[in-house]
């Protein structure tokens, strides 16, 4: 009998019975839909580590191409208790709390500038973080009394963003990356940090990246202080900013 309670040391996909390992797959083979194509698809799925393979459908999607929807049960499992993910650990605050923290603990307005960088023209994400009206009922940074927030818009080249950061004495730089074809987002993010290092800005400024394909670990790897992905709310970013700023202040005092 299969267990009815989850065994975290033996985690498998769930279909309708614990640990049945059911997975649905969809892929295309560049051969004509045929009994041979069906067999090839089944064998491939077997090689991927699946058992009890069921071809739900084989469709002729174009001349010489067949698409499959297949169900299979995977043999593999994971020990969920061993999983570690780099996350933003700082506590989340409300807008009122953040304004209050800056006022009492920092005592000056924090200058935050941001843009959608490189040749990326998607402004909606960075606007959601900056604009008064904000995102999903959460007000944007421009609404905070203790942020001096400036959104430079889209297609701002890295060097121009940093020039502006110097000119406005930015404490925080926000970079939005939406297009991720050929990993252009990663290239641009790395380049921003390289440039910042050359201009001796890296230590002075908090660098934050965001976008639908951005994750916190990947942003850290590119040299940022944090990364935010799909569905980010402005107050989450604001919380990180104040916490990071204060922790830097504390470090400075120690030296």
């Amino acid at each position, binding site marked *: 009998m299969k267990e009815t309670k989850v065994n975290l040391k033996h985690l498998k996909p769930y279909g309708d019975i614990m640990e049945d390992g059911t997975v649905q797959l969809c892929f295309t083979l560049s051969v004509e839909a045929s009994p041979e194509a069906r067999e090839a698809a089944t064998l491939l799925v077997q090689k991927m580590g699946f058992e009890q393979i069921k071809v739900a459908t084989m469709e002729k*999607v174009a001349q010489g191409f067949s698409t499959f929807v297949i169900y299979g049960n995977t043999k593999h499992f994971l020990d969920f208790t061993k999983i570690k993910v780099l996350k933003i650990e700082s506590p989340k605050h409300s807008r009122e709390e953040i304004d209050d923290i800056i006022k009492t603990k920092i005592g000056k307005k924090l200058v935050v500038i941001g843009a959608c960088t490189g040749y990326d023209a998607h402004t909606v994400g960075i606007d959601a973080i900056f604009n008064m009206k904000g995102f999903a009922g959460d007000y944007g940074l421009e609404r905070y009394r203790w942020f001096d927030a400036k959104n430079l818009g889209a*297609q701002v080249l890295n060097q121009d963003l940093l020039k502006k950061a110097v000119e406005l004495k930015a404490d925080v730089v926000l970079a939005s990356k939406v297009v991720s074809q050929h990993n252009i987002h990663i290239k641009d993010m790395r380049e921003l940090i390289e440039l910042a290092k050359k201009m001796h800005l890296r230590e002075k400024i908090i660098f934050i990246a965001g976008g639908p394909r951005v994750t916190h670990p990947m942003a850290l790897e590119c040299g940022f202080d944090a990364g935010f992905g*799909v569905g980010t709310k402005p107050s989450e970013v604001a919380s990180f900013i104040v916490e990071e700023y204060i922790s830097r202040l504390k470090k400075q005092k120690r030296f």
Partner: protein
Amino acid sequence: MTEDCMGLGHAQEMNPEHPNCFLLEIARAQMTRDIFPNSPIKFMPPTRYKSGDIFYSHLMDAMFNFVGVLTGQTIQLLGMPTEAMHTPLLQDRWMSIKNAKYIFNGARDLSQEISFQQNGVINTWAQKVLGETLKHLEMIKHKGLFKAIEDRAFAEVSRTETSGKGYDGVIKKHLQYLNPFFEIF
């Protein structure tokens, strides 16, 4: 240019959680059809509110197709389940085409069977959109096109007359500027 050569584009981009969003989308699509009866109309699928949930996304496209067939749009661009992910894969395109064929066949003559209430939600919304569009056009006329572009009148993007990509390459032509190649081309 004659009206039948003027292709006009519009899109179905409302928040899918908005109450009665299909009624409002029908209102806009029908209004566009009625205002430009002789022009081919290009109807574009939802993109902005697409998320990584490709199954929900596929359903949004089905409802978009339904609005399209109901209001007699000329050129129906097809939405992709994976809009929020990548440029569509072959199987994404196939799903979309199958979706559209199903709905365009199944509801082919529905528009001839129904009419909308005079003061109902659909007609009222069409009036409202039309009024706001007029105001927007008047604002553009008043400000001038370039100033309006700068003030994000189009797609909420600001582009100024004196900056932006490619501005480096813009030069002032001398009065006697001559480029023989243009003539040859």
